[in-house]
């Protein structure tokens, strides 16, 4: 189910709002609080990274944060305008943190930029596993 989509200009002060929208969506999906802490940090890292990458590449395109859930997964997709080949100034730290926290995390070329997809199993699903 589509939960929410937030489109922001690539500005550092927008990242906080994107964290909030993600956190609020996860709460509505019934994600437990300790898992929400992980999601907030992982998603915050990835959005901050996209904002910084676009600033470095001089790209003013909006960054799009798309949050969805189905019965099994809580998924956040971040679309930015930077080429996947562009290196990170932080030596990949932000992405490593997100990878450590998300159950699934992948980066791929999408549109004319990159799409980072993070996903976490929803509690119900963990219990439903046979």
């Amino acid at each position, binding site marked *: 189910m589509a939960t929410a989509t937030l489109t922001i200009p690539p500005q*550092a*002060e927008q990242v906080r709002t994107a964290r909030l929208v993600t956190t609020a969506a996860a709460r509505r999906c019934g994600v437990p609080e300790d898992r929400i802490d992980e999601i907030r940090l992982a998603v915050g890292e990835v959005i901050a990274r996209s904002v910084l990458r676009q600033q470095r590449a001089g790209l003013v395109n909006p960054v799009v944060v798309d949050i969805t859930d189905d019965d099994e997964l809580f998924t956040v997709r971040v679309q930015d305008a930077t080429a996947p080949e562009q290196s990170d100034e*932080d030596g990949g730290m*932000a992405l490593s*943190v997100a990878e450590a926290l998300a159950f699934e995390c992948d980066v791929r070329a999408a549109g004319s930029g990159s799409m980072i997809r993070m996903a976490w199993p929803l509690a119900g699903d963990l219990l439903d596993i046979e």
Partner: protein
Amino acid sequence: MDLQLSTRQEGDVAVVSAAGEIDVFTAPDLDAHLASLQSSGSTNLVVDLTRVAFLDSTGLGVLVKALKRARDTGGWIHLVVTTDRIRKIFDITGLDASMPIFDTVEAAVAS
């Protein structure tokens, strides 16, 4: 408004207390605050993160930069972390290996 910083002196140690969120937006403030303390002679710093609700890798980057500056002058940085939420990012990144973490400001100052 999102990050409050205050500093007090305990002997030859400057104790910086942060409250709020340290992220890509506020990390430059922390950087400027620590750099200015260090350039005015504070070689040993305690950074108290007890009231920090959020810390991301841009915030860690600032702490690492400050640690390098401290070491350049023979000083150190000790952190105070009391919440699992904040401790987690030090675990993930392994940064707790280079910056000692304490449970109280007293312990961080004394060590």
